[in-house]
């Protein structure tokens, strides 16, 4: 997209007037403010979190007792497929993106991301892509081939109907959103840092965002290729995975996991970044081994590319491949372990304040460690041959993705909520939320370890009575409902906290990084004055410069105060104007994808929308000329 900033610039005729007001529906549809975009990411992905949770509960109801007949096998396949797909692509990734959007510009001292309209495009493509994937429910043919979509189970010969086509096209559209966001955040972090903020002074969350974004822009294209090939096979009769023509279904597994393994680090690294911000704040001491945590994250991001075949130990790749991937998988546990020790050492000797976000972060460390250890048992390929396709694997990845990513995200929500909104979430309800989620989570997923080791297979809609699996399954179902109640308590907490607003100052936790140096919620221009950065945790040392000379912090009042915005002359503030083009490009892309299933007319309309949107976008000035105040 080349936007040429020139007063003489020509514009294509507008169909709608450019939205200018700073309130109302048009403001939200046209906004390019990273904070508003982050909020919308958060709301939409939380909606999908609830949908994915309902899908999980239906699965648990069906499995609560042996030979249950509540859900048909066909519906069961659709539920576990959409549960996995939803939780990975529509929940953890975009919830992380909500935090990227909100926090990265604030943490590096920038006014916005590098490309605000591209950021809006990511949001809209994500929203319409998620709708595209889920309207398959309305057709009665939801995707049913698993979130990994292995052929031949997903080829048109064995899986006719539109379900998997919706799935693969939805993934491709969502991939566009992720790549666009990844590009944006890489450029933002590399190029938009405040003066003095060298790479090794950046907050850990920003570092993890950078590593995650690099993984996204490199891994999602691989998924796009897999998606294009599967679309070709399903819709146009190509032969990529058609064994009758010599195609190889195993090849899909290779490219899917070549994407899929970096993807799991895309899911967990942002969570690690959040925890690395919360722990030092409430342990009242600096993060232990900042450099080690950063380089461990980078190493995880690098080594994540060399472990994909551990998803394929039982395929029969031969002893050489299995040994190599066993070794690389065990090696990747090292940087992960380094991080866990660093977090524990951060807590060691700190004066710990057990706020809700701190509880979730400590819960994260414990649960992620359990999940990490069961992960190492999969790394050993002979052992994995016993565990493959059993509930042991289900237990493992829920411990790292729910006990890991989701716990950290909830911790992040309680931690940054005052910054996002200007008021606290209720701590008492928060602690109840944590306790119920902790109990429910372990009740649901711990029994799956022994269910799996006892041989209970994944993805089977029921099991026989005499297997001895009923008690554990019932416990898991009860745990699932406890989690649901804890999420409900979170939602009630959001409503109650909004009604009796307990106002938060700009720096309510006495925290460390730049986002706490401005008022809560931040003004739309973020920083009145771009800060000059001199240290890691710059805001902390601006408040307590004595700490740099080794004097204890006790009984010292902060040396710096949150930025005062009362004297800012709003007429001198130039931020990019709103734009509706990203919205229409997002709609167009999803329509075109939908048209691949139904009719070329829709493809044509979609592509015309995309083309018009791109041209309009390129010719639109960042600011309307009459608004200039020079």
């Amino acid at each position, binding site marked *: 997209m080349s936007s040429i900033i020139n007063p003489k610039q020509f514009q294509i005729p507008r169909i709608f007037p450019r939205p200018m007001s700073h309130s109302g529906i048009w403001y939200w549809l046209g906004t390019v403010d990273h904070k508003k975009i982050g909020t919308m990411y958060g709301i939409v992905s939380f909606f999908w979190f609830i949908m994915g949770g309902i899908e999980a509960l239906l699965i648990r109801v069906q499995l609560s007792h042996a030979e249950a007949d509540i859900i048909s096998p066909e519906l069961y396949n659709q539920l576990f497929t959409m549960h996995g797909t939803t939780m990975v692509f529509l929940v953890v990734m975009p919830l992380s993106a909500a935090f990227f959007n909100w926090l990265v510009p604030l943490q590096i001292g920038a006014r916005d991301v590098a*490309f605000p309209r591209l950021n809006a495009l990511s949001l809209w493509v994500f929203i319409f892509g998620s709708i595209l994937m889920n309207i398959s429910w309305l057709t009665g043919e939801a995707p049913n081939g698993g979130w990994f979509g292995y052929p031949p189970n997903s080829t048109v010969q064995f899986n006719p109907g539109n379900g998997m086509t919706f799935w693969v096209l939805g993934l491709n559209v969502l991939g566009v959103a992720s790549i666009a966001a990844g590009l944006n955040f890489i450029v933002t972090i590399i190029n938009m840092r405040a003066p003095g903020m060298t790479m090794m002074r950046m907050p850990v969350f920003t570092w993890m965002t950078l590593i995650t974004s690099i993984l996204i822009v490199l891994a999602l294209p691989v998924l796009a290729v897999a998606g294009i090939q599967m679309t070709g096979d399903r819709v146009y009769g190509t032969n990529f995975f058609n064994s009758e023509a010599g195609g190889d279904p195993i090849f899909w597994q290779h490219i899917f996991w070549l994407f899929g393994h970096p993807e799991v680090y895309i899911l967990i690294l942002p969570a690690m970044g959040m925890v690395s911000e919360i722990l030092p704040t409430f342990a009242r001491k600096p993060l232990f081994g900042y450099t080690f945590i950063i380089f461990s994250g980078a190493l995880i991001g690098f080594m994540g590319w060399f472990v994909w075949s551990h998803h394929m130990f039982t395929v029969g790749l031969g002893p050489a491949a299995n040994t190599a991937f066993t070794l690389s998988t065990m090696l990747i546990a090292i940087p992960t372990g380094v991080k866990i020790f660093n977090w524990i050492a951060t807590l060691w000797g700190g004066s710990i304040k057990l706020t809700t976000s701190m509880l979730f972060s400590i819960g994260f460390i414990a649960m992620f460690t359990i999940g990490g250890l069961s992960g190492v048992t999969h790394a050993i390929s002979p052992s994995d041959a016993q565990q493959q396709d059993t509930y042991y694997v289900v237990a493992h990845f829920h411990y790292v993705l729910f006990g890991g990513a989701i716990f950290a995200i909830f911790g992040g929500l309680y931690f940054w909520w005052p910054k996002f909104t200007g008021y606290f979430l209720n701590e008492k309800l928060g602690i109840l939320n944590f306790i119920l989620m902790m109990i429910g989570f372990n009740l649901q997923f711990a029994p799956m370890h022994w269910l799996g080791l006892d041989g209970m297979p994944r993805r089977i809609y029921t099991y026989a009575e005499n297997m001895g699996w009923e008690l554990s399954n019932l416990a898991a179902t009860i745990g699932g409902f406890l989690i649901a109640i804890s999420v409900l308590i979170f939602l009630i907490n959001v409503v109650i906290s909004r009604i009796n607003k307990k106002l938060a100052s700009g720096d309510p936790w006495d925290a460390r990084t730049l986002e706490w140096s401005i008022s809560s919620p931040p003004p739309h221009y973020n920083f009145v004055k771009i800060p000059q950065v001199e240290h890691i945790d710059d805001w902390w040392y601006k408040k307590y410069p004595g700490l740099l000379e080794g004097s204890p912090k006790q009984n010292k009042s902060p040396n710096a105060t949150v930025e005062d915005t009362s004297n800012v002359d709003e007429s001198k503030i*130039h931020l990019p104007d709103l734009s509706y083009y990203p919205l229409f490009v997002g709609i167009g892309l999803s329509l075109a994808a939908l048209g691949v299933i139904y009719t070329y007319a829709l493809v044509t309309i979609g592509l015309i929308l995309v083309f018009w949107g791109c041209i309009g976008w390129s010719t639109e000035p960042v600011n309307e000329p009459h608004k200039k105040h020079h």
Partner: protein
Amino acid sequence: MSNQGVTVHHGEEINNSTGVSNKKLLMWVFLGSDVMFFGTFIGTFMAYRNKSLNGPYPADTLDIPITSISTFVLLMSSLGIVLALHYLKESKMGLAKFWLFLVIIMGMIFIGFQVYEFSHFAHIGMTPQANLFGSTFFTLTSLHGAHVSIGILWLIFLLYNEYKGNLTSENAVDLEMAGLYWHFVDIVWIVIFALLYLITAGDGVPPGGLPWTAGH
């Protein structure tokens, strides 16, 4: 600290940590992403080389001399865009427009050759559905063609802006960005031409494949 009189701006003029413009950095990172895209397709092609069970096979279809011509034209267009950018930066608008125009024409010639090639292949029975060679060949080359086509549209847009006086030496980075993209697409074609044409063209019937004769 008084905040009165502070002017707040968004954009590169305040924070620019590396000195490279955001747009250029964006294009470099995007190209890194695109490497993975093409890399996976090229990997697919190589993994499925000599795995087709029925014809037409590469030896029956590929025509190196013809594709060499279009390859030469595309590679020369890279030179053209270097000159177009050079003259734009020097504000020699006549030459800048001339070279940009020529690049667009060369891109169109390349696409024209590809259209001819595709229809010729389809005529003798090589389609994306025919066999593995067809599937892997057409997805890779047509997506490369789509990249070239998007590049052509982009360059036409920029040329139009040169005529309108909007694209000058001051915002030459907009052409530079398109140039990076164009060079990348050319470099990818070098890899495709080497692997899909030069190395593969001699591949006949693989072990286990049915023989093929034209007209069947």
